[in-house]
């Protein structure tokens, strides 16, 4: 095959790979391993301030972030984290993020078994229907997504502006396009210089083999001519002058700058609740055909009031006990329906657990979502322990949040 045929063939293959790609949709988080989604970060009380916004409008995501105590440490320890916004590309601009009211421009460290309030402010940039999640990036591991909601952005993409005023009074009319001309010019200048330099060395045609032959025959002296040395010297002068000029002119135009921050912000978790409901896993079975996770749990009520189990949440799926009014009220209008299990949570016995008592209860969380959200593949993972948060409520609606985790064994018996 000659060069032209090879070039034509590779071009055709490249075009074929572009033409025959499938369209991408949302819910890429389903590709993450189930134990990652269940035993790392739990997001709850998540709200989105709007369902529909115009380009340039802001939305706010709020809620709580819980860092699972039974983190899969055998895979990766929790190090630096970065609070972020999970969307399909830059369709929203992240304006501000906070953990417990501490601005999160930089990374931070969070603790196992602790809870944090989060707030994310974002500005709509691209029209369309977008799936918007809170997200946290884990150093050396990757992103962990919270629940996602479809947000409609109306308007015209060309109308997007992002104005800013710096601390020393410089007004930036639109950060999206500010100084783009300068960026292109500087890049073009250095690219041209680079191509001229490369061109100088390759201008005489075949250049690698002749040089190689000169080296192996001990004729290094013919590799560089006087003209080569003159051009090299001129280029060094041009490069040094260009760098100096760029630095001096930029410093004179913008004398007050601060470096990109490489440190970490310190944030303290929310205080632990002195009164807690403690839950211990006793037995876990996943009924494969019925798509049902059945757990036997030992619950110790260390609060001052009798409590009932109101909600079981894992991997952003919510199973709500319809018999607990406070739990039902905890699902706000407009919460993504695909994350709420239709049949809810079945608890046996469902009577309130008095203060100080330890009781064994069985919990059934059944829904096709275990399969459609690709959580049932937990059974085939090397680490097949589930993880979940349990919400207990007393008669006044006061909530206690507990963590539970343990192995779940697949079963095909008793539909």
């Amino acid at each position: 095959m000659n060069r032209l045929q090879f070039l034509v063939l590779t071009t055709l293959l490249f075009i074929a790979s572009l033409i025959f790609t499938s369209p991408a949709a949302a819910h890429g988080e389903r590709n993450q391993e189930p134990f990652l989604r269940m035993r790392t970060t739990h997001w709850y009380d998540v709200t989105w301030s709007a369902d529909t916004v115009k380009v340039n409008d802001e939305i706010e995501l709020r809620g709580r972030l819980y860092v699972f105590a039974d983190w899969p440490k055998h895979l990766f320890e929790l190090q630096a984290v970065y609070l972020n916004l999970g969307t399909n590309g830059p369709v929203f601009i992240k304006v501000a993020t906070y953990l417990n009211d501490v601005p999160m421009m930089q990374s931070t460290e969070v603790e196992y078994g602790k809870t944090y309030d989060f707030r994310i402010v974002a500005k709509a940039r691209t029209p369309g229907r977008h799936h918007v999640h809170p997200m946290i990036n884990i150093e050396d591991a990757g992103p962990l997504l919270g629940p996602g909601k479809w947000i409609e952005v109306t308007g015209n993409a060309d109308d997007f502006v992002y104005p800013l005023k710096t601390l020393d009074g410089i007004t930036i009319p639109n950060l999206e396009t500010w100084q783009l001309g300068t960026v292109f010019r500087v890049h073009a200048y250095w690219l041209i210089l680079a191509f001229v330099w490369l061109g100088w060395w390759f201008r005489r045609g075949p250049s690698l083999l002749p040089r190689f032959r000169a080296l192996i025959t001990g004729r290094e002296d013919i590799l560089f001519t006087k003209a080569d040395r003159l051009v090299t010297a001129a280029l060094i002068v041009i490069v040094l002058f260009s760098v100096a000029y760029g630095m001096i002119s930029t410093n004179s135009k913008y004398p007050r700058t601060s470096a990109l921050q490489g440190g970490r912000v310190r944030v303290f978790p929310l205080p632990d609740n002195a009164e807690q409901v403690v839950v211990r896993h006793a037995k876990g079975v996943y009924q494969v055909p019925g798509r049902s996770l059945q757990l036997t749990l030992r619950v110790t009520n260390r609060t001052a009031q009798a409590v009932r189990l109101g909600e079981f949440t894992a991997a952003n799926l919510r199973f709500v006990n319809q018999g607990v009014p406070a739990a039902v009220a905890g699902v706000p209008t407009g919460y993504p329906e695909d994350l709420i299990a239709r049949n809810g949570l079945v608890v046996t016995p469902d009577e309130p657990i008095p203060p100080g008592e330890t009781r064994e209860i069985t919990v059934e969380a059944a829904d096709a979502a275990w399969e459609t959200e690709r959580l049932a593949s937990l059974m085939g993972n090397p680490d097949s322990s589930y993880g979940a948060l349990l919400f207990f409520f007393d008669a006044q609606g006061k909530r206690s949040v507990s963590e539970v985790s343990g192995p779940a064994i697949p079963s095909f018996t008793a539909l």
Partner: protein
Amino acid sequence: MTALFVPRLAGVLFAFTFIGLAAPRWCSGHGGVSMENDLCKLRAGPYVLHFTGYQPQSAPELEFCEDIPDTGYTLIVLDYLDPTLRDLPVEARIIRDTGDESDLERITVYHKPAAVYPRGSFVIEHTFPEPGRFVGLIKVGDQVSRFPFAVGTRGRRALMLYTFFAAAALGVGGLLFLYASRRA
């Protein structure tokens, strides 16, 4: 044949293989059930359900799509990918593939009457005593999905796999032998 014939032929075959693999395929050999983007789907009109088959007594680790590997106790679970399905009645029937569907009752081996399943999953449980060819009929609302399938295909599938890889190995070996002969 020129000396470049074999490498060129290999290059063309490779290109077509690559393009063919890159292109999405819609197989309809099993009617309403097919593998799409690594997910086994059953289509009934506009509705899409996730189809998973199990034979826990003969192959507990295996999930199957379309044909059923062994005879015996079989579970088929249909998970609703569309939330609207949770409010619609779903009915299932398995009939022998006799080619004549004028009297369904006579050829029915399994029937689950229509019911609503708000949990989002519909389960078919049946024991196939012998190998054979069957047709599944799933009615979702007023939409019907028809999917022919075979029972007891495990041995045949293994034979097909062995035959394919043997043919591929022979083909590659033959091409290399021809190329080497030409070079010599």
